[in-house]
């Protein structure tokens, strides 16, 4: 903390993330602007591994990204047991907005938000980076200007030379694409887009599109909305679920949700399109 107190003041706790606490603070020299400081403790057992790989990845990725819809990393201060990442400060996460139904009365705002998310994701992918953990908690919103910024690149990966498999430790289940729920380790850009689709659905419904607890419950929910996949609708699905398509339960029909909002059809279209393209990504040529 001392290292940080040299140049920052007025600390105010604003949240506790999965990996550390976040404080809001001002710079001593310039008290007009607020900054968010993420304090990442490096526990003793992790020190055995040198600088944690999560931090190396997050910082190295953020250093390269320069986009209005991606949170800006301003400074990295390291001590032996702690790491301080100084970000620009945004007051809310998208999660907070989603809890307040009044916020999404207007479709215009919804579209604005989605557009910002999608352009950020397109930018990330064009830089050959996968976010792998897109969810409303990781999307920050500036309340006054309605600018959205994607944060938390702790699970991000670069894929200029694709790796055969990525580790299973990815994102929360609610925003995970079905093939990952099946246990596939082939992460691709399509999976980030799936997460965006889920976030969009959540904006419309004011509740998570899929909220299943376990992987199988989650899959069940996906299929009850989109119908159980078959080899025709999703080539290769049999091999994904271990050759046992019956394990997916009795086939469900695709629901046409007319009684939802009009724009639900848009997601329907998106998700449908996604499902068909999800596993078409091929790395090995």
């Amino acid at each position, binding site marked *: 903390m001392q290292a940080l107190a040299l140049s920052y003041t007025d600390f105010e706790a604003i949240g506790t993330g999965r990996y550390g606490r976040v404080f809001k603070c001002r710079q001593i020299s310039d008290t007009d602007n607020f900054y968010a400081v993420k304090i990442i403790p490096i526990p003793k057992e992790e*020190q*055995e*591994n*040198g*600088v944690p*790989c999560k931090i*190396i*990845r997050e*910082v*190295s*990725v953020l*250093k*390269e990204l320069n986009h209005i819809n991606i949170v800006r990393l301003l400074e*990295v201060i*390291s001590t*032996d047991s702690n790491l301080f990442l100084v970000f620009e400060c945004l007051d809310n996460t998208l999660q907070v907005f989603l809890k307040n139904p009044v916020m999404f009365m207007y479709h215009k705002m919804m579209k604005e938000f989605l557009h910002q998310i999608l352009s950020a994701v*397109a*930018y990330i*992918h*064009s*830089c*050959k*980076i996968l976010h792998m953990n897109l969810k409303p908690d990781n999307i920050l919103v500036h309340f006054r200007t309605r600018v959205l910024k994607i944060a938390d690149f702790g699970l991000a990966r*670069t894929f*200029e*030379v*694709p*790796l*055969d498999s*990525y*580790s299973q*430790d990815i994102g929360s289940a609610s925003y995970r694409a079905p093939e990952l729920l099946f246990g596939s380790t082939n992460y691709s850009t399509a999976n980030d887009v799936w997460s965006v689709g889920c976030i969009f659905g959540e904006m419309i419904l004011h509740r998570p599109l899929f909220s299943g607890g376990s992987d199988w419950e989650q899959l069940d929910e996906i299929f009850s909305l989109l119908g159980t996949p078959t080899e025709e609708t999703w080539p290769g699905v049999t091999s994904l679920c271990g050759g046992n398509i019956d394990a997916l339960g009795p086939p469900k029909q695709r629901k046409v949700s007319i009684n939802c909002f009009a724009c639900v059809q848009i997601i329907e279209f998106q998700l449908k399109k996604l499902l068909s393209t999800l596993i078409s990504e091929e*790395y*090995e*040529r």
Partner: protein
Amino acid sequence: MDFDTEFPMPTFREREAITSYYEIEHLYMATPNFYIPASHLQYRRHAVSTIARIRTFGYLENRRETDSFVQQPLWHGEVLDAYIPYLAMTYFDRFASASSILDMPGASVTQKVRLVSICCLSLSAKMRTKQFILHRFMKEKRLNFTVERIMSVEYRILTALDWRLRTITPFYFLDHYYPTFKRIGGFKRRCINEIIVQSQGEHFFTQYKPSEIALCAFLAATYLAYPSKFDSINKSGELAGCYRELVNLCLTRKIELRGESGKVLPSTKMEATSTAQPSSTKTAATPTTQPNEAASAAAETQTTKSEEELAEAIVSQVNQQSSNSSSRTTQLWKTVLDIEEEEEEGTSQLTRRPRTGASKQQGQDQGKADTSGEISTEGKEDMGKGVPEASRSEVIIAGIVTKVQGQDKDKDKEVVAMEESWEEENAEAKRLRKMKGKAVMMEEEDDETGKVRFISEIVPAAQAAPRNLMNFELQWPITVQPGEVLDYLDESLQIDESRRVSIRCPQTIRGTGNDPPLNASCCNCTIS
């Protein structure tokens, strides 16, 4: 650019990204003149050998203990991912030129360089995989640095690199060049990857920008695999030195080139047979490319024809191919292996190249710099002529060969002497219990086969692992020339200017900002 399912038109954003890579790529390499002083080169050689050795010994150790142990990868979960050492060397290059290695903790310069290269390796491993566990890795490799020390050095490297570990590498540009080269037959991604990774073991290539290396890897592959098409490529003369060296590299390291279909391309096979002739020096390997080209030129027209037909057939049978290819690959791999076994002799002599080449150090570096210089200055005018140029460079090379052969006998003696001194160094290190693990392993190997055979020995291990894009054995020079212990190099930091070896290609204008603007929408290398 035609529509192509494999390489769709790049989106606006992708083109934008590529353009930005061209603008910033020079930030991700060693500073222009850094590798001119001999001492800096020596740092790099040591770093390369440290990393190569860490990798190689891991496998040798495992192979040997397969009877009693379950075969373990380099560290838990790691396959033969050659990109990790590649990245590590890019970090090393940048770190070494950004801040002084001599400031690092460590008893001797050798120790410092080793420490830095190990930290670079751990950083790159962490960037690439999640399964990397430092202390386990250290234990497996018997590296006895404290974790605290590793961590503090990691921080220093990170700070020096401004935490920018996502490096722009040649791989970012490959997608950009593939469609162009697909039209002349195409290559498997894996072999292009291999060329690039193997080139990182040689300091010569540090002077070229990532995009140049990417292009030259394709040019070199074309030169070897589709010689008849090579002249139809409009290429800039500046890169002549680069792709010539890459061609040499492909030949000496026996990188097999495969077409889109996964078929081993003809010239690689020819190369395999041609290297069976005793050729003990690096320069001697070069002329083999010339007859290769000449002899195969006639045959090539047929083979490329069949290659084209094959390519067509493949488009229609992609699915079938993909299922067949695995079995096919293994078969081919076996045949290649057979050839390699037969040529054990030739291989060992060839693989000796980096060392013997290096042992001559100043002298040969000078010669090498001269040839590359000459070739590259001639590059532009010769591009049009094609054939005369080949014969001319042959003359140059022939000149060198005679020189080199004259020195051959002396050199062999030198090598022996140096090996001895290397062993002495090892013994000393062992006594000091500093590089305990390595010294022990080193000696074991010395007794049995000699270091030179490492590369050929490892092949079966690679065969066992699944073959994929980055899955091949690293063939970086494992030995730094012995006798040149880094610790005594400090005095040589003041180099006699007249003896200074310029490894730079005179015409490259790297990192100067004078580079011609590259239009990202099309490849700057066109086929007429």
